[in-house]
């Protein structure tokens, strides 16, 4: 890589870190200023709304199969149902994910 390209990599890296870091410093200062017993009360409502909604959006985006066709969409639907069913009974992180991947994989291998 040329020097200019290295500078572009470093600028992108520094910029990305600042995008993740500066809002934290802003929020920590805000929390410290308010000195509230309940630190959650200090968070703006729009921000606390966006947290869960961003996770929901990540879920929506990630539903898109690597190769979108009828079989992979069917596998996605069955994988989602299997994940939900195991989560409903176990309320853990690992087992529902494993069950979802197994169900998705089984459909892909059988029909794909």
């Amino acid at each position, binding site marked *: 890589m040329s020097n200019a390209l290295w500078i572009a990599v470093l600028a992108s890296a520094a910029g990305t870190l600042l995008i993740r870091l500066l809002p934290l410093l802003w929020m920590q200062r805000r929390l410290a200023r308010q000195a509230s017993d309940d630190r959650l009360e200090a968070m703006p409502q729009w921000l606390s709304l966006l947290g869960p909604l961003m996770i929901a959006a990540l879920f929506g985006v990630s539903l898109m199969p690597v190769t979108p066709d009828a079989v992979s969409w069917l596998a996605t639907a069955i994988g989602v149902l299997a994940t939900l069913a195991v989560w409903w009974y176990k309320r853990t992180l690992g087992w529902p994910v*494993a069950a979802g991947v197994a169900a998705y994989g089984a459909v892909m291998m059988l029909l794909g």
Partner: protein
Amino acid sequence: MNLQAASSPSRAWLTGMSEAVPLLGGYVPVAISFGLIATQAGFSAWEAVAISTLIYAGASQFLFVGMVAAGAPLWLVVAMTLLINLRHVVYAPNLAPWLTPSRLWPWLMHGLTDQIFALAHARLPQLPAAQRLGWYTGAALLAWLSWIGGTALGALVGGELVARWALMGEILPFALPALFLVLVAPRFTSRRWSLALGLTILSALLLTLLGLTNVAIPLAAVCGALCFQLVKFGHTAERKDAQGERHE
């Protein structure tokens, strides 16, 4: 990988790592693809690894190497990379109420990817304060190392891997939607939240289907937030939804 809190600070590291394992199913295949594409675009293996180590942001890395290979001006490459990562702005403030006093936290924000945010947003409130730094460090470190390792693998032997295990490359990434589903499912606590979350999921999927993957996450979240603010079911109990949700 139980949702119970880790029992000691040293175990918190391991708990964080073990709970981040499902992320690897999504990270490693994508990182292998990145390593392969970066070398095909003219980067050496160690340059691809350096990009993954330093920038550490999936979609924007693909854009970075693609634009460089296409001969785009470098200022535009940097600007577009940062624009794609701008959605990360809302992540750290959402975690801030649960972060303990430590000078390490700002540096650990390098590891605050979409997936680590989703995991930490669900888990940090459930952990005792003493466990949070260790838990986050373990989870973020495993995810980061898997991304770097996957990139190296893709850059060095990616072509062969993709040819031999093409189906695994399609199956393992389902770990990501499965994990996000497990993290978002407990948020369906009321009709108002269910409607907002459902609309967010559908609009994100629709935008992705339309090829607008990079703007799908922030746009869909804004759609859901507008829906939450506009739709009221007339129950006073639901007025406190936004506050109540954060305490769960």
